[in-house]
C-alpha cells in the first residue's frame, strides 16, 4: 500500500512530470543538488503548492515542516508552541522532551531566532504532532552536530509508526535514517527506489592486475580513477555483470564501501 504517491506532478519548470509511490511506513530521503525541486516536491505533497499538472495523494493526517520555518515574525516562540498545542494530535510525550532538549528561548520573537533555532522549533512542533505522514524539508539546516543527532533520533522515533519523507542535503544522515531514496535533478525524477536497490546497482570496486580490463566495462563505469597502479571505478551495473566481465578479462576485483554522498555526487555529475 502506498502512503504517498505522485502522478505526473508538474509545477512550472521546478518540477516536471514526477511520478512515484512510497510504501506505507517507509522513510524516504529526497536528495538532489540545489534547485533540483526538493522543496517544490514537498510543497506539492503537503498541498501548500498547487500543481500545474498531475496529482499527489498523501495519507493523512500530514505534518509538514516547510524549509526555514516561515512564521509570522511578531509571534513569540511560546505563542507558536501554545497555538500548535491546541491542535489535535499533539503528543506531549514526544513534544515536551524535544522542546526541552532544544533549549528554545520561549520569550523570544520568531524573527529573533537563529536559523538553527527556527529549525529546532519547527522540528519540535511538527514531530510533536501525531500524523500518518511527515514531510520534512531540510530538518538539519543550520544545526550543530549534537542537535542533529537529537533530530535524527526524533525522526527515527516518529518514523516507527508513520511514513516519513525527508528532503535534505545530508546524504549521510539520509543514509542512516531512510530505507528509500528519491533523487531529483533539474526538476526531474532521476531515481526512486529502496536503498538496497541503489546498493545493488551502484558499487565501487578496486581493480588490480590487468587494469586494462576496465575498457570491458563500457557505459557500466560511471567514474574511473587511478590510484597508483590500481584503479577505482564506480559502477552503474543494474544487471550485476560488470565484475564478472572484469574477472574474465584478468582483473582482480575488490568491492569497496560506497558512501551515499559520493554516489550522489557521481550520479549528479
Amino acid at each position, binding site marked *: 500500500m502506498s502512503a504517498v504517491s505522485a502522478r505526473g506532478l508538474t*509545477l*512550472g519548470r*521546478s518540477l516536471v512530470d514526477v511520478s512515484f509511490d512510497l510504501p506505507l*511506513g517507509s*522513510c524516504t530521503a529526497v536528495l538532489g543538488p540545489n534547485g533540483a525541486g526538493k522543496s*517544490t516536491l514537498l*510543497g506539492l505533497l*503537503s498541498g*501548500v*503548492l*498547487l500543481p500545474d499538472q498531475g496529482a499527489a495523494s498523501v495519507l*493523512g*493526517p*500530514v*505534518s*509538514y515542516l*516547510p524549509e526555514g*520555518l*516561515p*512564521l509570522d515574525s*511578531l*509571534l513569540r516562540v511560546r*505563542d507558536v508552541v501554545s*497555538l*500548535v498545542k*491546541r*491542535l*489535535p*494530535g499533539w*503528543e506531549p*510525550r*514526544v513534544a515536551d*522532551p524535544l522542546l526541552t532538549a532544544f533549549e528554545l528561548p520561549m520569550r523570544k520573537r520568531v524573527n529573533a531566532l537563529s536559523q538553527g533555532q527556527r529549525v529546532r522549533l*519547527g522540528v519540535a512542533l*511538527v514531530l510533536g*504532532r*501525531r*500524523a*500518518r505522514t511527515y*514531510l520534512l524539508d531540510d530538518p538539519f539546516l543550520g544545526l550543530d*552536530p549534537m542537535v542533529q*543527532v537529537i533530530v*535524527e*533520533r*526524533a525522526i*527515527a*522515533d516518529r*518514523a*516507527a*509508526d508513520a511514513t516519513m519523507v525527508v528532503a535534505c542535503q545530508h546524504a*549521510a544522515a539520509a*543514509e*542512516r*535514517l*531512510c*530505507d528509500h531514496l528519491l533523487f531529483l535533478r533539474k526538476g526531474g525524477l532521476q531515481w526512486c527506489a*529502496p*536503498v538496497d536497490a541503489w546498493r545493488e546497482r551502484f558499487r565501487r570496486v578496486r581493480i588490480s592486475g590487468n587494469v586494462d580490463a576496465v575498457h570491458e566495462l563500457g557505459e557500466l563505469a560511471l567514474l574511473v580513477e587511478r590510484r597508483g597502479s590500481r584503479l577505482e571505478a564506480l559502477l552503474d551495473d543494474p544487471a550485476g555483470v560488470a565484475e564478472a566481465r572484469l574477472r574474465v578479462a584478468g582483473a582482480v576485483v575488490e568491492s569497496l564501501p560506497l*558512501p*551515499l554522498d559520493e554516489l550522489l555526487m557521481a550520479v549528479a555529475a
Partner: protein
Amino acid sequence: MSQLGTLHHFPRAQADRSISPDELRSAEPLDVPASQPDMAEIGGGESLRLGAALTIRSRWPLMAIISVISLVVAQGLTDTADWVQQSAHGVLMLMVAAFGLIRGLDGQGPTLAFWRGLGVRPASFELGVVGVDLLFMGALLFFASRVTDAPVLTLLGAGLALVAYGFGSATRGAASSEGGRAALVMAMVSVMLTGTALSFLASYGHVVLALLMQMGIIGAAGVLSRVLLSDWAPQTAAVRQQRRGHAVWLGCALSGLLVIPVQFFDGMPESTAAVPDAAGLFVPDRDPMSGKQLWRVGADGEPERLSLRGRVLFPEPGPHRSAAFFHKDLGAVASMLVREDQGREQSRGSLTVRDGVHFAMITAGGEAITCDGPLLSGSTAFDADGMGATRTLSSGEVWRLDGDGCRLRVEEGDP
C-alpha cells in the same frame, strides 16, 4: 533521551563515519501504542479558532495602540471647540480605516505555509482572521458612535474601514510585495471614485450615498474573495515564476459599478411616514440617506422627486426637519427651514465648511430663492403657510424671504 525511542524500524540504517546506528538506538524499546490515540484531521472549527487566536496573538500590539489612541482622541470629543471635536472624530475614523488597510494588506505570505502544512483548513482559518479583524473594527466604530454625535461620519468611517480592508484583501493574490499591493489599492480607489462620479452624474444620486454603496459592495467583495481564495498560495505563483497573480482585485473594483444601475432605478419609497409641509415638500423617513430625499406633492397629488444637484446636508427629524442643499447654480444653501445651529449641522455630516447661515427657500414650484451672502446669527420666523420667512439678525437687521425674493425690511411690518 530514552524517551525518543529506537531505530529498530530501520533495518537499512547504515554504518556511518561519524555516528553509528548504535548511538541512535535508545536503551528502551519504542513504546508503540496499540491504537492510534488521536489521528483526527484538523477540522473547520479548530482552523477558525486557530486563525482568530493567531491574529490576536500576533497583532495585539497594533490593536492595543489603536485602542489607546482612540481613548485619548475620544477625550477631545467632549467639552472642546467644534474644530477640535471634528478633527478628533476625523482622526478616529481614519485610524479605523488605517487599521483596515494594514490588516487587509497583511498576511497571505509564506508564513501561512506552516499552518497549512499542519492540515489547517485555509478557508476556515481565514474566516477566523477576518472575523477578529472585523470585530475589532466594529468595536472601534461602536465606540466612536457612542462617544460622538455624528452618525453619518461614523457610517463613512465604517465604509472607509471596510473598503480599505476589502481593497487590501482583494489584492492578496495579485502581487507578492505589499508595496505592489498598495499600488493596486490605489488603482482600485481610482476605479471606485470613477464609479461614484458616474453614478452621481447618471442618476442625480447623492455622491455620499453612491460612495457608501460602492464601499459596501467592494469591501464585501474583497473580504469574500479573501476567504474564497484562501486556497490560493502565492508561493505557487512564485515557483511558476509568474510576474502577475490573478486579477480578482479588478473584479472587486468593478463590482462597485453595480451602484450605477441600482441608483438609477431607485424610485420613491413605497410608503413614507413624513408629512408634507406647507410648501408640499417633504423628506421620506425611509430614505434618510438618499440624495433624492426632497420630494414634492405635485399638482395631481402624487409625490414627485425634485432633482437635486449638489451636496445635501442631512436633515434631522424634528420640528425643523428640512432638506437643505447647496443649489448648484447659485452655490448657496437653499432651505425651507434653515437651521441656525450651524456647528451642529456640520458635525451631522456636512463636509462643507460654511462661513455663516445662508438663508434661502425653495418654492412649491421648485424654484430656489436665496439671499445674497450669509445671514449671520439671529432668529427665523416662518410664515404659517410655509411660503415665506422672516429672519432677524442679532445686529437688528430684518430680512424677508418669500416668493418675491429676499430683501432687507426697512420698516417693521412692511415686507
